[in-house]
């Protein structure tokens, strides 16, 4: 495609910072947001907004527009705008999505925005992520290299060797941005928040598969219990909503195989 053809492209821009929406292809969208203002009331309610959008307007752009021009009391999390920080998860028409990577051009009619499911709501679209952080920490998500052959010496530092094939084995599972969408997708977590959940188990699995790690045994107790891998019934919706294609369902269920192997071996060892 020549540069002339590129310049002829019609996609218009939406400048963050000035909400200076381009004059191309502007339409109006109707957005309903689930509000919860604990300072005022114990009840939640729906609030509707109509706003101008163009081809490139993301849900995050829309929320920022609402905050700046229509209703400054709306609270929501956001940061990077490029789907790498994991801050802006919300429910869009009942599906967990990242606000910055949801484009309003793909939606017709009323667009319903709610806080991420299965987490306690603090206010408006802000949920309490504490349980998520707790589960993450519970699986010992760091390299455990117990008594390594070469201890790290700042004077003569040496890395481990890891081939591209070895890296490939766990790389996908290391791409989790901790956005929590998978927890909102998971009915088992919705039923029982004590379930470790997709992201935490995936992170444990990422380290278990890392050729430099020797911590599988130490993580096993946490994983090999009812609220570890065994709560999962492979609904698989977590993998469907994952914005980074990490495939947590695969990780959790591979975790089941490992846990089962561990139990069997323990049985034979007596």
């Amino acid at each position, binding site marked *: 495609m020549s540069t002339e053809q590129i310049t002829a492209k019609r996609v218009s821009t939406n400048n963050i910072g000035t909400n200076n929406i381009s004059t191309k292809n502007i339409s109006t969208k109707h957005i309903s947001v689930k509000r*919860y203002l*604990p300072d005022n009331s*114990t009840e*939640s309610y729906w609030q509707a907004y109509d706003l101008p959008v163009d081809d490139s307007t993301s849900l995050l752009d829309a929320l920022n527009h609402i905050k700046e021009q229509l209703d400054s009391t709306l609270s929501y999390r956001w940061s990077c705008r490029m789907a790498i920080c994991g801050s802006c998860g919300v429910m869009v028409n*009942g*599906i967990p999505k990242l606000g910055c990577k949801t484009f309003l051009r793909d939606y017709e009619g009323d667009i319903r925005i709610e806080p991420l499911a*299965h*987490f*306690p*709501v*603090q206010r408006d679209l802000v949920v*309490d992520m504490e349980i998520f952080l707790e589960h993450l920490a519970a699986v010992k998500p760091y390299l455990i290299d117990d008594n390594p052959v070469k201890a790290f010496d700042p004077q003569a530092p040496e890395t481990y060797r890891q081939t591209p*094939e070895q890296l490939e084995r766990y790389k996908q599972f290391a791409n989790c941005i901790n956005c929590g969408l998978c927890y909102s997708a998971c*009915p088992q977590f*919705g*039923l029982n928040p004590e379930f470790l959940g997709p992201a935490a188990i995936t992170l444990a699995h990422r380290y278990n598969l890392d050729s430099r790690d020797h911590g599988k045994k130490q993580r096993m107790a946490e994983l090999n219990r009812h609220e570890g891998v065994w709560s999962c*019934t*492979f*609904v*698989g*919706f977590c993998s*469907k909503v994952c914005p980074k294609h990490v*495939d947590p*369902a*695969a990780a959790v*269920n*591979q975790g*089941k*195989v490992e846990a089962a192997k561990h139990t069997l071996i323990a049985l034979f060892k007596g």
Partner: protein
Amino acid sequence: MDKSSTQRLPPLKRTWWLKHGFFKLYMLREATVLPLLFFTFCLLAGMFALLQGAESWQGWIAFMGSPIVLVLNLLALAASLFHAATFFVLFPRVMPLRIAGHSLPDQVIVAGQWAGVVAVALLFFWLLGRA
């Protein structure tokens, strides 16, 4: 002030799975156990009838030939195939197979499992033919 004192968490509704097509399909997958259970009961009844003697056995044959039971068992066959289809697709994600340092593509593993089904079917028909 403790932040949890003002939080609200609506409990998961029993109808959670009606919310999305993906969940409905999942429940259908799980529900395939029911027609299969029916089929298993039919087989057990058959074994029992066999032990009871020729008359019971004839009774069981008639039972198996009745329209409702036929339909239910066809349903069980369909359920079984549906379950196989969903399981076969999930399997490569649960046990990724590697040969010579490269992972086998998912379609190969899925195809392999269906090949197994075909082999079993062929074996059945061969045995049936010899009987």
